[in-house]
C-alpha cells in the first residue's frame, strides 16, 4: 500500500509548516492522478485545483469517466494500489498529506475527512449492525470506552435525524429503509466530526422525496460548519446546496465558480450541454441534446454545443420548435391501443404475509401518445409493466392490446399480439447475452419477428399502420432470408442512430448510451406499435439520457409509436408524457394530462413529489 502517494515536485520544501492552522478543510493545487506508468502522458486527473472552507459546499460535477470519484479517493489516499498521485499542494485540515505513509493516512481518515458513498445498502457492511459500523471510527481514533462510544453513536444518529436510534443502531443496512441507511452512513462518516465530508453521489440511489431530505441533512451539516465536497453527475441536485460548482470533464476542471453563476451563466460548452440536457420543466417536444448533423437547428461546426436552444431556465419560453405543432396533433384523440382495467397483483412476503404490489390499476394508452407512470421505489411501477407485458399473471383485472384480450388470452393467442409490443429496460447490459455481438442480438430479434410470420416495413418508412408489410413466401430461400435479415438489422441500427461499424462489437465494449440504443433497436425489430419503457434512461448520464429521450421522441413521431413510459424521475416523465399516472403503494393516486398534473397537482402525494424535485433556478 505504501508509495501509492508519490511526492510531487517541491514535496520536500513543505509549503505549510506543521502547526500553522489553516482555515480550509481541504486545499488542492494541480492534482494529477494516473493509473499507467508514472509520468504517463494521459492521466485520469490532470491539474485539478480547488479548496473547500469550513461551512462551505463545493460541488464537483461531471459525467461518468470524468474523474470525479478518483478525485474523492485521492483526497483520502485511497486512489488504489496501481495509482500514482502528484500535486503541488494537497492538504487536509491545514496540513500536508502528500507522501504520507499508509499508517499516517489511517490516522487522518475518518478524523480529518469522512466519506459518504452512493448506496448505503452495500456501503455499510451488510452483515454488521449499523451501530457497530458507526462506532468503528470511534474505536479506531479515540480511547473512548464501550459506553461512551454507545452514547456518541446515539448522539450522532440523533444529529442525522434517525428516529428511535437506540433500536435502529442494532439493525443491519438491509433492515433499514433507503433513507434511514443513508442517514446511518452519513452518521458513520461524521462520528468524529471531521472538518471535511466528501459525499460521492450521496443521493443517486434514493427516491426523490428521500433525496430532498438527505440534501437538507447535508445542508444542515454545512450550516454547522462542516466543509462539504459534493460529487455528483446531476447539476440540478447540487444546485440545491452547493455554494460553488466545479465542472469536471476528462480530468480537467473546465469551469468553476459560484453556483448561481455556473447554473445561470455557464461559460463552457460542456456545462451548457449538461444544463440543456436536464429534462425538468422542458416542454414536450423540445430537444434536449444537440442534434448531430441535423437540419434544425443548423449546427455550425465551431459551436456545435452552443447551437441548440438556450437553456430553458434562462428563457423559460424558448421559440417553439417545429415539434410543437406536431405534438398537438399527437395528443389529439385517437383510438386506444393499450388498456389496463382493475389490475391487481399480490405477492407473498418471505414471512408469509401478503403484499398488494398492484392494487386496482387502470389506464388507457391512446395511439401515438405517451403515458408516463411515475412513482417511487416499491410503488408497483415495474410490476405494472410486467403485467402489461403478460410476464406476470394478474390476480384480477385485464390487459387488452389493440382492443383484443391479452392478459386473459392463452399464451398461444398472446404470441400473435406480442410483436406489437416492444420492451426497453433500464439495465440494457444484463438484457443482452454478453457473448453475442450487436449483429447477433439484432439478428435474433429480427429472426424472431420473421419466425412469427411477419416482416415489418423499415422503421423509417412510416409504414406503421399495422398492415403487416410483405410477408416472406415459404419458398424464399435461406440465403435471401439471411440477406433480408441483414438489411433489416442495418435499418434498425440506422433508425437508432448507430453506425454500422458497431455490428461486430459485444455489449460490454459499448457505452451505456449505445447499449440502450441497441436495446431500443431490438425492441423495434418486430415493428411494434406500443413500446413499454421501464426506466429506460435511469442509469445514463444526463447528456446521454437527453440523447436517448430525443431518440425515443423522434421514433415516436416517425413510427407513430405509443409509449408506456415508466420512471421514478419526474423531470423525465414531465418531458416525455402526454398523460401522466402517479403511483403510490400500488395505486394510481392521480392521473391526467401531463400539463395539468404538473401545473396543478391535486393529490398531496403528487404535490410532495413535485416539491422534492431538484430544479434549477433560485
Amino acid at each position: 500500500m505504501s508509495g501509492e502517494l508519490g511526492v510531487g515536485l517541491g514535496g520536500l520544501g513543505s509549503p505549510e509548516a506543521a502547526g500553522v492552522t489553516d482555515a480550509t478543510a481541504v486545499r488542492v493545487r494541480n492534482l494529477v492522478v494516473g493509473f499507467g506508468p508514472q509520468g504517463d502522458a494521459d492521466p485520469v486527473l490532470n491539474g485539478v485545483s480547488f479548496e473547500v472552507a469550513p461551512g462551505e459546499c463545493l460541488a464537483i460535477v461531471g459525467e461518468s469517466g470524468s474523474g470525479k470519484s478518483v478525485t474523492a479517493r485521492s483526497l483520502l489516499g485511497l486512489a488504489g494500489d496501481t495509482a500514482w498521485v502528484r500535486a503541488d499542494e494537497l492538504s487536509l485540515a491545514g496540513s500536508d498529506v502528500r507522501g504520507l505513509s499508509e499508517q499516517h493516512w489511517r490516522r487522518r481518515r475518518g478524523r480529518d475527512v469522512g466519506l459518504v458513498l452512493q448506496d448505503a445498502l452495500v456501503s455499510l457492511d451488510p452483515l454488521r449492525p449499523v451501530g457497530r459500523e458507526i462506532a468503528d471510527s470511534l474505536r479506531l481514533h479515540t480511547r473512548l470506552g464501550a459506553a461512551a462510544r454507545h452514547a456518541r453513536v446515539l448522539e450522532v444518529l440523533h444529529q442525522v435525524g434517525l428516529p428511535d436510534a437506540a433500536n435502529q443502531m442494532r439493525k443491519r443496512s438491509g433492515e433499514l429503509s433507503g433513507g434511514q441507511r443513508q442517514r446511518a452512513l452519513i452518521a458513520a462518516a461524521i462520528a468524529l466530526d471531521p472538518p471535511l465530508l466528501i459525499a460521492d453521489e450521496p443521493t443517486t440511489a434514493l427516491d426523490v422525496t428521500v433525496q430532498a431530505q438527505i440534501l437538507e441533512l447535508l445542508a444542515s451539516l454545512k450550516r454547522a460548519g462542516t466543509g462539504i465536497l459534493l460529487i455528483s453527475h446531476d447539476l440540478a441536485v447540487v444546485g440545491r446546496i452547493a455554494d460553488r460548482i466545479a465542472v469536471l470533464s476528462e480530468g480537467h476542471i473546465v469551469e468553476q465558480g459560484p453556483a448561481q453563476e455556473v447554473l445561470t451563466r455557464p461559460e463552457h460548452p460542456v456545462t451548457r450541454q449538461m444544463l440543456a440536457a436536464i429534462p425538468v420543466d422542458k416542454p414536450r417536444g423540445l430537444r434536449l441534446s444537440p442534434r448531430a448533423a441535423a437540419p434544425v437547428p443548423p449546427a455550425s461546426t465551431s459551436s456545435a454545443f452552443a447551437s441548440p436552444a438556450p437553456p430553458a431556465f434562462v428563457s423559460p419560453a424558448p421559440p417553439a420548435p417545429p415539434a410543437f405543432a406536431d405534438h398537438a396533433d399527437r395528443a389529439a384523440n385517437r383510438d386506444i391501443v393499450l388498456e389496463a382495467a382493475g389490475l391487481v397483483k399480490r405477492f407473498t412476503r418471505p414471512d408469509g404475509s401478503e403484499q398488494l404490489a398492484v392494487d386496482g390499476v387502470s389506464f388507457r394508452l391512446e395511439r401515438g401518445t405517451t403515458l408516463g407512470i411515475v412513482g417511487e421505489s416499491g410503488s408497483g411501477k415495474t410490476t405494472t409493466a410486467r403485467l402489461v407485458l403478460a410476464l406476470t399473471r394478474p390476480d384480477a383485472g385485464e390487459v387488452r392490446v389493440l382492443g383484443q384480450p391479452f392478459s386473459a388470452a392463452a399464451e398461444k393467442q398472446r404470441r400473435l399480439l406480442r410483436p406489437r409490443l416492444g420492451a426497453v429496460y433500464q439495465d440494457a447490459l444484463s438484457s443482452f447475452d454478453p457473448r453475442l455481438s450487436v449483429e447477433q442480438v439484432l439478428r435474433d430479434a429480427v429472426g424472431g419477428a420473421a419466425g412469427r410470420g411477419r416482416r415489418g416495413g423499415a422503421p423509417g418508412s412510416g409504414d406503421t399502420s399495422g398492415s403487416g408489410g410483405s410477408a416472406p413466401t415459404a419458398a424464399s430461400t435461406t440465403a435471401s432470408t439471411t440477406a433480408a435479415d441483414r438489411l433489416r438489422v442495418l435499418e434498425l441500427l440506422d433508425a437508432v442512430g448507430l453506425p454500422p461499424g458497431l455490428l461486430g462489437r459485444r455489449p460490454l465494449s459499448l457505452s451505456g448510451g449505445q447499449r440502450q440504443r441497441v436495446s431500443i433497436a431490438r425492441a423495434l425489430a418486430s415493428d411494434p406499435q406500443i413500446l413499454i419503457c421501464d426506466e429506460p434512461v435511469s442509469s445514463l448520464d444526463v447528456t446521454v439520457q437527453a440523447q436517448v429521450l430525443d431518440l425515443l421522441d423522434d421514433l415516436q413521431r416517425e413510427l407513430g409509436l405509443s409509449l408506456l413510459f415508466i420512471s421514478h424521475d419526474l423531470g423525465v416523465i414531465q418531458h416525455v408524457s402526454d398523460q401522466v399516472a402517479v403511483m403510490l403503494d400500488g395505486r394510481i393516486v392521480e392521473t391526467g394530462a401531463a400539463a395539468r398534473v404538473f401545473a396543478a397537482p391535486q393529490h398531496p402525494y403528487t404535490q410532495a413529489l413535485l416539491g422534492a424535485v431538484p430544479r434549477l433556478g433560485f
Partner: protein
Amino acid sequence: MAEVGRAAPVVRTARVVLGRLGGAVFVLWMVATLTFFAIRLIPGDPAEAILGGPGSQTSPEALAAVRAEYGLDQPVFVQYLAQLARLATGDLGRSYSLNQDVAPLLLGQLGGTLLLAVLALAVAWLLALGLATWSTRGGRFAWYLGSGLEIVAAALPHFWLATVLIVLFSVWLGWLPPISTSGVSGLVLPVLTLAVPLAGFLGQIMRESLLTALESPFVLSARARGEGERGVRWVHVIRHASLPAISLSGWAFGSLISGAVVVETIFARPGLGRTLLTAVTVRDVPVVVGAVLIVAVGYILMTLLTDLAQRIADPRLRAR
C-alpha cells in the same frame, strides 16, 4: 421489547429445523431401500457368507437352516419389508460375519471416523483460509502461487497423497508412524491426507469471495474511516468470504466420510470406513445397511449444522 423482536427469527429457525427433520426421514428411507437392493446385485449366496464365506465347506442342510433362520427363503419384497420394520424400531440387526449386534458394533467404530473427519474439516478450513488470505495480499507472485497450489491440492487423490506422505514423513524422515496408532502422532498423516485436497477446493471458493468482498463499497467505507488492512480483513472480509465455504462444508463432510474408507484402509486405522469396506467384501448386509444409514444420518445432521452456522454468520438469512 428486544425479546419480542428476536422471538420471530427463532421461531422461523425452529420451523426450518422441523422441516428438515421431516425431509431426513424420507432420505433415510430411500437410503435403506437403495442399499438393501444394491447389495443383492453382488453375486454370491448370502447364506454362504453367513456360514464363513464362499470358500467354506457347508452342507445343504446347514445352508437351508441358515436361510430359514435369517428369512432368506422368503421373497425379496418380504425381506425388504421385514428389514424396514426392524430399522424403524432402531434395530440394525445382527452381523452375518461377526455374529454381533450391528448397532453397538458400528457405534464403537463411529468415534474414530468422526474424529478424523472433524479434524480434517477443521484443518482444511485453516489451510484454505490461510492460503486465500495470504495469496490475496502478497502481490502477484503470491497470487499465482496460491491459486496454483489450490488447483494442485484439489486434484490430489487420497490414495496417492497418503502414499507420498507415508514415504516422506515415515520412511525418509521417520517423524511419524506409517500406521495410525492411538496417539496424536498417528492422526497427523490421515488427517492431512483428507484435509489437503479439501483445502484446495475450499481455498478456491474462499479466495473468489474474499476478492469480491475486498472490492465492495463497504470496504472502501471502512478504509475511509481509518480501518487498516488487518481490520478490514478480520472485521469485514473474512465473514463474507466464509459464507460460501460454510454452505459447502456439509457436502465436504460427506466427501470426508467416503475419503475415510480409503484413508482408514491405507493407515490400517479402525473406523466406520474400514468396517464398511470389509462388510461389503463379505456381503454382510446388515452391517452395510447400518453403516450407510449412520453415514446418511451424519450427513443430514451436518447439512443442518451448516445451515444453522450460515444463519448465524449471515443475519440476512434469519429473516427468511
